[in-house]
């Protein structure tokens, strides 16, 4: 079944999209509807593209005159969410991990515990003879040996997944203009903005609010800042011969501290609004999604705690917990909700590409 995209989820999403294509009332909310109206028939790949373009803003659900108990039973946000999650299972590499963490909080927690235990063990048994700061507990060499593959493997797995996505949706060679447009759409979460409504429907039912969008912006930008922090530290270590610990006014801290704060608060807020929203308008994956969100929050919070504890006896334990969270996050990325970043970005690139081609433009 994994290599056959005509799953029931795709078929159900197609049934609903065909109703929408005869209606079109929701054209102004997001990119899904204008993309839909370009076609009359929807192949599996078209459905995958529409599903990944949908940001689950829910505007079209609350505006729909055909929701249950109407016999047409339209619930497009849920139908597209199911089709989207199925698509990620299909693209997962290696396939045995498909869906492992996306839908299951338990599996996520198990990996987290195992990762933290591993780091405690390493700190206990492999403690170096000497070293400064963190490296007094875990040598630089061991950290690199652990995290290099733990980072590169998910990157490779996601790259293969995105390639499969691109094939399924019939993507073509990418122009710089497509990436730029997708970057703007992702950075502003344009499709979570409800068009002229300027906001989406989530925790307040049919009222429009920006809570989820703002929380997501905090997580996403917080994450990118933390990512920048680690990258800057790597550069400083290898190219500037400047190794940790870094003071408060160095790039790793200037990026990492606000990043950690944004990520922690944002993730907490995202998880909280999710408990207020109607679960029947999303994918049936509540546990896995919340576990992922909280894991992100834990990465941020434990990082901040570690920094705050500098010089105290809490450092070894906090170090093991923080690195355990990071390790669990990396390892599960291609198979958890985190994969959405990659596939959604690919969908935005493809949409930008189709629009550019339909304008007949080839300029970069």
């Amino acid at each position, binding site marked *: 079944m994994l290599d056959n995209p005509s799953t029931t989820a795709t078929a159900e999403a197609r049934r609903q999209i*065909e*109703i929408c*294509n*005869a*209606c*079109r*009332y*929701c*054209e*102004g*909310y997001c990119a899904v509807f*204008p993309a839909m*109206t370009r076609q*009359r028939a929807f192949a599996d790949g078209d459905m995958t593209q529409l599903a990944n373009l949908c940001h689950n803003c829910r*505007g*079209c659900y*609350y*505006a*729909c*005159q*055909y*929701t*249950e*108990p*109407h*016999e*047409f039973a339209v619930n497009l946000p849920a139908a597209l969410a199911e089709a989207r999650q199925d698509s990620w299972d299909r693209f997962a590499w290696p396939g045995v991990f498909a869906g492992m963490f996306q839908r299951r909080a338990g599996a996520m927690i198990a990996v987290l515990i195992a990762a933290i235990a591993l780091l405690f063990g390493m700190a206990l048994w492999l403690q170096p003879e000497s070293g400064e700061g963190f490296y007094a507990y875990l040598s630089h060499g061991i950290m690199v040996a652990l995290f290099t593959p733990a980072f590169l493997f998910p990157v490779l797995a996601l790259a293969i997944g995105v390639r499969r996505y691109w094939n399924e949706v019939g993507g073509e060679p990418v122009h710089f203009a497509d990436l730029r447009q997708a970057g703007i759409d992702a950075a502003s979460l344009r499709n979570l903005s*409800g*068009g*002229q*409504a300027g906001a989406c429907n989530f925790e307040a039912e*049919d*009222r429009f609010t920006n809570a989820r969008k703002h929380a997501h912006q905090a997580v996403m930008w917080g994450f990118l800042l933390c990512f920048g922090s680690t990258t800057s530290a790597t550069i400083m270590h290898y190219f500037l011969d400047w190794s940790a610990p870094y003071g408060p006014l160095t790039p790793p801290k200037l990026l990492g501290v606000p990043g950690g704060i944004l990520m922690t608060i944002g993730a907490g807020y995202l998880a909280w609004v999710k408990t207020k929203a109607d679960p029947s308008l999303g994918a049936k994956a509540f546990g896995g999604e919340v576990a992922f969100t909280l894991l992100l929050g834990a990465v941020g919070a434990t990082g901040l705690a570690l920094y705050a504890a500098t010089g105290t006896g809490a450092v070894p334990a906090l170090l093991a917990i923080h690195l355990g969270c990071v390790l669990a996050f990396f390892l599960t990325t291609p198979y958890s909700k985190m994969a959405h970043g990659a596939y959604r970005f690919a969908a935005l690139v493809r949409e930008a590409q189709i629009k550019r081609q339909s304008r007949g433009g080839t300029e970069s």
Partner: protein
Amino acid sequence: MRDVSKTIWDVIVVGGGNAGLCAAIEAAEAGAKVLILEVAPKPYRGGNSRHTRNFRCMHQGPLSVLTGDYDPDEYYDDLLRVTGGKTDETLARLAINTSESCLPWMEAHGVRFQPSLSGTLSLSRTNAFFLGGGKALVNAYYNTCADLGVEAVYEAEVTHISLEDGAFTGLEAIINGETYDIEGRALVLASGGFQGDLDWLADAWGPAARNFLIRGTPYNRGVVLRDMLDQGAVSVGDPTQCHAVAIDGRAPKFDGGIVTRLDCVPFSVVVNKDGERFYDEGEDVWPKRYAIWGRLVAAQPDQVAYSIIDAKSAELFMPSVFPPETADTIEGLGQKLGISGTKLRETVEAFSAACADGDFTPTELDGLATNGITPAKTNWARPITEPPFYGYSLRPGVTFTYLGLKVDQTARVAGPDGDLLNVWAAGEIMAGSILGQGYLAGFGMTIGTVFGRIAGQEAAKHVG
């Protein structure tokens, strides 16, 4: 739910569609204590207004999503053309002139607009489209009402209005199966037409009406309208008429809404169940003709017809919600549609043979007409010869009824002995006061918004 019969309300609004909600908002903003009684359960609140997509708006210069300008005289002329002169000029001009100030009012009360939908470019100057359609508008108004402290009760059917000496004193409503007497000082009636009551429709139109489909809500059954007429309220509008268009014959009996429309007729031949053509399919562009096709189909045996196209025309119109029947031969298609394949083949062959060469232009009247058959097809006549062949069934779909309550410029309802003291009406229930026949796209929401607001203001002023 708290017991709403324990309060004496300033203003009671019957029916929570566009007109009722506009009235409730205006009355509440003027300080009145307002109750809305809505017969439908919450998911179906908002009646036919849930199914709308735009409202027609006069404007002198670009306004919100509207382009260019649309002046009052042009608007009025458009109206006269569709009503064949059966229009109350004073009320119509009042609706038209007030529509311009309604748009910003709607925005201020939560309605969002979007540029005109794909496939409706011709309306981008005259009609402002609601973002998400009418249900989003209804949601916005219910939220505004909640913020203003208006009480809205669902599954509350108003069954009787108590009138004493030309004045409203209270009403009877069935809520959760129990009958309540609810007192109020002013009343706004906004409970729509009666097309949901098939018996009434059959009385008015004849038994054929039982085969009609109702495009909108099943809850507009005219209960309050009949009660008011029985008590001597003055009626307007032709009681035997309803606005009916030709829609997909497979649509649900009620609430099929916009998606059941079929735009293929001008590119097709249309036959009845005996396989015979009965009218010029290419008389005019579809938006100008879909209303007469409701009547044409209603006059055919069993109130059904079949629209047949070939592969050439399959993509010339908006996609349909139900896929067409498909076959490689006309005969096979006839069988699939449940009519005589042989007869259908004869009709289609005779039609194709009567088609002439010429330029086909789907977007405008192209004059490509048949020769020597009756009825002729006067535009877009191309032979139906290229398989696969597609067929859709057509049935009349009722949009609304014309019979209603007579009101004046303040939306006040006329009783047997002059205006009723404290009863106003807005929306479909009084639209007959303005439109005697015909219909102009987007005018229903204009009437509801303009007169709903007036009714709310007047009712609040009365209770002061």
